[in-house]
Each structure stands twice: as structure tokens, then as C-alpha cells.
């Protein structure tokens, strides 16, 4: 069922793309006078807020540099976006180093380099075989993280994951946790976390919910005191949550960088000049703030992206 749906979506995507490309061919007014004048790109993204914002940032910056850009943001799931990239249906999208290391390149979580630059280099090198280039590495790390409310952290005196492991052993009832299915299933999620910190939370203390509801549960402390989050999530500061320090460096880095097809980069090497200054500005805190503007304040992704680029002086 899932596969046929995907196939239909991909076919529709391919059809849509062919039409827009044909349309672009007739339309010569799109090109400007910047570094990328005359080139055209299709920019993709995954379906969640952060990815859509990042996609819009790339689109606006490329357009500002004079390129013709097709918006293919919002594709569902890593697998689909990646397939679109490998089959040249899109030219680029922002990916996470950790996701690529495990999910795309099929490496073991435990073997991932701890240093973020080393992880980026390793991923970039392996992906060359697939004809994919990694450029514009940011320091925004959208890693898995474990959070709790500021209040709970104070009451239980838990600020690191080691503290949490101790709490689980001494008082499992007050160590209850909420997480989404994906975190509970993934080897680089909950199972690995328990192994790395040497604890085991009884099943009845785990509530499996949709990710968004973790942010409803933690401030109330009901039905759970701790929960899975993504570190760049804007709802962390908005809900006054504290991220527990990963003192054993368990979670793999998930730093944002641009993946682009070899062909597209060869045709327009100036891409790096356009994207590098953006990457230099994108930190975890910046991304958290951008996400918050969409998820908490309800602003549209493209407006948020445009304002950020203008504030940073990255587009004219």
C-alpha cells in the first residue's frame, strides 16, 4: 500500500516537473543578473516545518542570485526526497549528516564519528559514489534530544542524561517519558540510549504519542515528565523546556548541510558561493528561532525565510 502510494506520488511529481520545466523553457524572463543567472534548479525538502523553511531559504537565495527555481518542497519522508534527488527530479535539498549516515548510507550508529566535521566529511565522501555532493555545512544540529520542563528539572535535579539514568534506577515512577514511534523504534533512538547510559525504564512508564503532543505533556508533567524532542524545535524555548545534556555523547550529530547532485554542482559551481554565507549563519539557536516563528507564532515559512535572509543581509 505504502509503496504504490509512493509510486503514484513520484509519477505525479515527475509529470508535474516535466511540465514546469517545459514552462521554464519558454519563459526567459525568470533569469536575473546574479552569479547564477541563466541556471535553473529544482529545490526539494521534506515535509516538516524546519525543512520547509530551509527549502524556502535556498529558493530565495538562489532566485536572488539570478537563478530560475522550481519549488518542490514538502515531499513526504526522507526516502522520497532522496529518491527524487538521485533520479534528478530535484537538484538539491537540505539533509542531516546523521540521517544520511544511518538511513541513507546504511552505516551503524555506533560507528558514526563523534566530531561533527569528521561525520560530515565521512558522509560526503561515501555519498560521492552515489553522485551526490555535500556542500554548505551549517552548525545547526537537529539531533534527537531528551527534554523536561524547567520545573521538573529543578525538582528532580536532573540536568544530564546520566542524572536521568540514575533517576530511572532510583525512582522509575517519576522518570516517566513520552516519545513518538520513530524514536522508540530507531536503534539510534531509545533502545540505543538505554544501552549507552545503562538503564531500563519499565514499559508502563512509557507513553507512545504523536511528537507534537510531547510538548503538551511535558509542561503539565502528565502523562510524562520527560520526553523526546528535536534540538532545533522552536517549541523547546516556547514551552520553557530544558534539554538534558548528552554527557556521554550518545546522540549522533544531525547537522544540516546541502545535498546537491554532482551534475547540478558541475554546471553551476557558484552554488557554493551563494549557499556558504547562509550556512555560516545557520546555528542551532537560529534554526530554533526560525522554527518557533512558524510553529509557535503561525507565520508562513516563506515569509519567515525571507525576513531572516534580509535581516542577515544575505539577499538584496
Amino acid at each position, binding site marked *: 500500500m505504502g509503496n504504490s502510494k509512493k509510486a503514484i506520488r513520484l509519477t505525479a511529481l515527475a509529470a508535474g516537473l516535466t511540465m514546469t520545466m517545459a514552462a521554464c523553457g519558454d519563459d526567459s524572463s525568470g533569469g536575473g543578473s546574479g552569479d547564477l543567472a541563466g541556471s535553473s534548479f529544482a529545490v526539494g525538502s521534506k515535509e516538516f516545518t524546519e525543512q520547509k523553511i530551509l527549502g524556502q531559504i535556498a529558493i530565495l537565495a538562489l532566485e536572488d542570485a539570478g537563478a530560475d527555481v522550481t519549488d518542490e518542497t514538502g515531499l513526504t519522508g526522507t526516502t522520497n526526497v532522496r529518491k527524487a534527488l538521485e533520479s534528478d527530479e530535484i537538484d538539491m535539498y537540505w539533509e542531516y549528516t546523521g540521517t544520511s549516515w544511518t538511513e541513507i548510507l546504511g552505516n551503524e550508529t555506533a560507528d558514526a564519528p563523534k566530531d561533527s566535521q569528521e561525520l560530515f566529511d565521512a558522509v560526503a565522501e561515501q555519498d560521492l559514489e552515489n553522485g551526490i555532493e555535500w556542500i554548505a555545512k551549517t552548525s545547526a544540529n537537529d539531533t534527537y534530544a531528551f527534554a523536561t520542563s524547567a520545573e521538573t528539572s529543578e525538582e528532580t535535579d536532573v540536568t544530564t542524561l546520566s542524572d536521568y539514568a540514575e533517576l530511572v534506577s532510583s525512582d522509575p515512577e517519576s522518570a516517566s517519558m513520552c516519545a513518538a514511534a520513530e524514536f522508540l523504534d*530507531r536503534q539510534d533512538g531509545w533502545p540505543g540510549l538505554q544501552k549507552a547510559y545503562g538503564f531500563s525504564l519499565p514499559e508502563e512508564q512509557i507513553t507512545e504519542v504523536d511528537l507534537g503532543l510531547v510538548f503538551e505533556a511535558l509542561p503539565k508533567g502528565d502523562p510524562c515528565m520527560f520526553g523526546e524532542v528535536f534540538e532545533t524545535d522552536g517549541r523547546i524555548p516556547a514551552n520553557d523546556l530544558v534539554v538534558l545534556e548528552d554527557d556521554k555523547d550518545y546522540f549522533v550529530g544531525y547537522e544540516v548541510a546541502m545535498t546537491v547532485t554532482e551534475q547540478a554542482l558541475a554546471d553551476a559551481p557558484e552554488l557554493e558561493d551563494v549557499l556558504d554565507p547562509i550556512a555560516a549563519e545557520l546555528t542551532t539557536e537560529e534554526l530554533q528561532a526560525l522554527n518557533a516563528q512558524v510553529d509557535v507564532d503561525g507565520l508562513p515559512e516563506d515569509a519567515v525565510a525571507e525576513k531572516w535572509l534580509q535581516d542577515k543581509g544575505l539577499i538584496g
Partner: protein
Amino acid sequence: MTSEEQQGASTGPVDKQSTVAGRTGTRSLASYTFMPVALAVVLLLVYLSVSTRELDSAEQKRLAFDYVVSITWSHIELTVASTLLVLVIAIPFGILLTRSFARLITPPAIAGFNVGQAVPSIGLLAVFAIVWDFGFWPTVVALAAYTTLPVLRNTMVGLTQVDASVIESARGMGMTKLAVLTRIELPLAVPVIMAGLRTALTINVGTATLGAFIGADCLGRLIVSGFSGNRPYLTIIGAVLVAVLALLIDYLAGIAEDVLRPKGL
């Protein structure tokens, strides 16, 4: 997905089955045995598929026999609890709203129940999770809110279709209004009410899968896990199990319908 199909089938104001309330009461032995045999075959195929397949760690955890049995049981609890809740709300209200003294409040009351069905279950679940709680009870109430209307409608239709002359002669024989209700109207309305309940049951089996989003254990766990982790195999197994459960419960409700139908109808 199963739940959608079942929701789609229920959008009509009165369930189709109610219009054929008078169909023949007894079925042949073959028609009674076909469904359980077919479902058993499907379950066997699922079992063979799971036991011969190489599973990754997440699939092993989600398809462990004990885990599947426990979430299936939780799924049945959700279904039964929500249908019971529907029963105790919809039938008394259905009776009340067909009494002549309630004429004036009938339209607004039905509009109220209509809202319950108009709001999508997933939205109601999310709202409950935010303003109320997570887990079993919010899911039960959200399911019940969605399926109260068909049972209420069928109860009202069942009661109002009773021939006025029958009621009149009963009154003429000196029966009280209460006696007319309990001894004439309700028995005659049972087939239509049962058809509504059967619809509610099948909708609830399918929709209970959504409980997975707000922390209620149910077969939706497999579907959600498969979907978020890109494991279509898990999603398919989950969907097949929900479908088997839905067909089984519908089959059992069909038997209950046959047994409870008053003799002579």
C-alpha cells in the same frame, strides 16, 4: 485505510442495513462458517509471513506475539467501551426524542449529535489530548462522539416506523404509555437499532487505530510505527489485522442481530 473506508460507509443518515430490516432471519450453515474460516486463513497467512521473514529490531519488537496480542486486546477494549458508551447515550436519547412531549427539542438535539459526527475523530482526539488527558478514556469518548449519531438515528427511525394503528390498539386495550414502549415499540424497533449498533461497532474498530497518536494502545501502533519508520511491511500487517478484527466483530454482531431479532419478524 480501513478506518477511512468504514467512515465513508457510514456517512448516510440512516444505515443501509436498517432499510432491509425485514430480510430473512435464518442463514444457511455455510454462510455462518465462511467468514470465520476465511479470517482464520488470513491470520494463518499473516503468521506464516511474519515467522518466515527476516525482521529488523523494530519489527521484531512490534511483531512479537505477546505485543500483538496485548495491543489487539487493548483495541478490543477501546471498541467495546466506546460502543457501550454509545449504547447508554444514544438509545435513551433516541427514545426520549421520539416521545410526543419532546417534539420541540428534537431538531436542536439532533443538530448537537450531528456536530459530534461532523468533527473528525482525529481532531477531537488532539483536542482531548491537549485539554483533557492522554490514553484510553479520551479515545473512548472521541470514538463515541463520532458514532452516537448513527445509533441515535436508527433508534428514532426504528421507533417511529412502528405502525401508529398498532400503538393505538395497544392504548385502546388499556396499556400505559410505558407498557406500549417496552412491550410494543422497542421490540419492534430492535432490528433497526441493532443495525445502527453494528455500524457503530465497525466504525469504532477502524477508528480506534487513531488512539495510537494520543497514547492509547491499539493496533494503530503497528500502522504508525511502520509509517514513521518507513517500514511498509509493519503498516500492512497492522492494517490487515485491523481489517480482520473489523470483519470478525461485524460477523459476531450479525449473529447477535439474528439472535435478538424478535420472533415473527
